[in-house]
């Protein structure tokens, strides 16, 4: 249970990090919080020749309000989501989900961007960020591109990141609507365990209380976060009466896997309950 030998590089600037990554590509791994990567190294499930530790790269650790969006840098720890006032004010969904990610000790090191780049199907943050219509800033030696959260994950532990690219920041846009409510819920066997099923919901209303935007995202019930199509029924709604039906139809879009801990059918029933709960809570919070 010790990692295989590797060469360790600790760049101080993003340019230097990208240069090393560009030279080694597939042979290198970027180390940020390390809470998923280091277990894989310890168990020798991953054996990169080079580890590029970006923890000392300047300028990546900020949570910055910029225009109408919130920028979360590559070194922002998951614990910051619980602690930083601007997150609670501008992206309360992330603050609500954060305490359910792993444990105190893993959140102290684990980064928001690292969770996204790792692309675990049971991870909370990628689902929240799809619900918030976040945009990922991807940087490589050849330049920078912006990828919508919903297009980032290609499959199980797979993203659109090329071997020479790093996820450098997440932009969380402010909703154009005046009343916004969000909610997050998951079911896990113990606190900090991977969820059996989870859901994140965002409901936006205009000044009259008419629903103008709604995004419900399931996780841990498929290879990637699932943005439900069924919620479109709620657009234009003035009350929450149809939420039960929407939740049931939305969960019907899923085809969850079965394993030791839960059957696929059970996961779908849990997902429906969580959809109902998060949509109703988000709706009520939008009305406040």
């Amino acid at each position, binding site marked *: 249970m010790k990692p295989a*030998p590797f060469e*360790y590089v600790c760049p101080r600037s993003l340019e230097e990090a990208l240069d090393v990554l560009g030279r080694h590509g597939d042979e290198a791994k970027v180390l940020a919080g390390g809470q998923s990567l280091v*277990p894989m190294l*310890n*168990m020798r499930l991953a054996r990169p020749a080079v580890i590029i530790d970006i923890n000392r790269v300047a300028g990546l650790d900020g949570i910055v309000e910029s225009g109408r969006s919130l920028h979360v840098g590559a070194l922002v720890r998951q614990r910051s989501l619980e602690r930083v006032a601007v997150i609670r004010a501008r992206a309360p969904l992330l603050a609500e989900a954060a305490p359910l990610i792993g444990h*105190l000790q893993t959140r102290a090191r684990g980064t928001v961007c690292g969770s996204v780049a790792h692309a675990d199907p049971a991870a909370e943050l990628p689902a929240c960020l799809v619900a918030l219509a976040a945009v990922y800033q991807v940087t490589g030696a050849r330049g920078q591109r912006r990828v919508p959260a919903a297009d980032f994950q290609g499959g199980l532990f797979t993203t659109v990141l090329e071997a020479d690219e790093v996820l450098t920041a997440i932009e969380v846009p402010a909703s154009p609507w005046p009343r916004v409510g969000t909610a997050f819920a998951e079911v896990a066997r113990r606190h900090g365990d991977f969820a059996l099923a989870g859901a994140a919901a965002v409901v936006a209303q205009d000044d009259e209380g008419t629903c103008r935007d709604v995004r419900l995202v399931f996780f841990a019930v498929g290879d990637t976060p699932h943005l439900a199509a069924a919620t479109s029924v709620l657009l234009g709604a003035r009350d929450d009466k149809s939420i039960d039906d929407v939740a049931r139809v939305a969960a019907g879009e899923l085809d969850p896997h079965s394993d030791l801990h839960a059957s696929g059918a059970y996961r779908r029933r849990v997902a429906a309950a969580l959809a109902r709960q998060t949509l109703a809570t988000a709706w009520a919070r939008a009305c406040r």
Partner: protein
Amino acid sequence: MTAHDIVVIVNGRQHRVRVMARLLLADLLRDELRYTGTHVGCEHGVCGACTVLVEGEPVRACLMFAVQADGLRLTTVEGLAPSADRLHPLQEAFRARHALQCGFCTPGILMTLVAFLAEHPQPTEAEIREALSGNLCRCTGYQPIVAAALAAASVLDENTGRR
């Protein structure tokens, strides 16, 4: 394989040491620097026995490389007691409540709680259980551990209030 010269400050004491890149922080502390109070259980971030403070934050020492701790301040369980003949209030509470059986998980639990209680001086029982969700005790001694944590919290909170 290249070696790296680093400096770490453990419990206020500075150590200069040469490490291989793949050396885990837990192994640096135990094998090289002999802070053997840091226990190594699972070595993949599940059991919490190796929890130490890195710049005041509770961290799993098996999920960090020693080289990453260059220049950082670390606290291990050896750094908790104020002197050789006095225990930290948390340790005192653990002893009084019999909050350990074999003691293997205890250092990690103490280091997690010391950081948690600094941020949450008046925790509920549920909050303590949540804070300890990343620390496994295989003697199933959670009840006295939670009781000791609650007792220590009120002592620590009172001490802070008096100052």
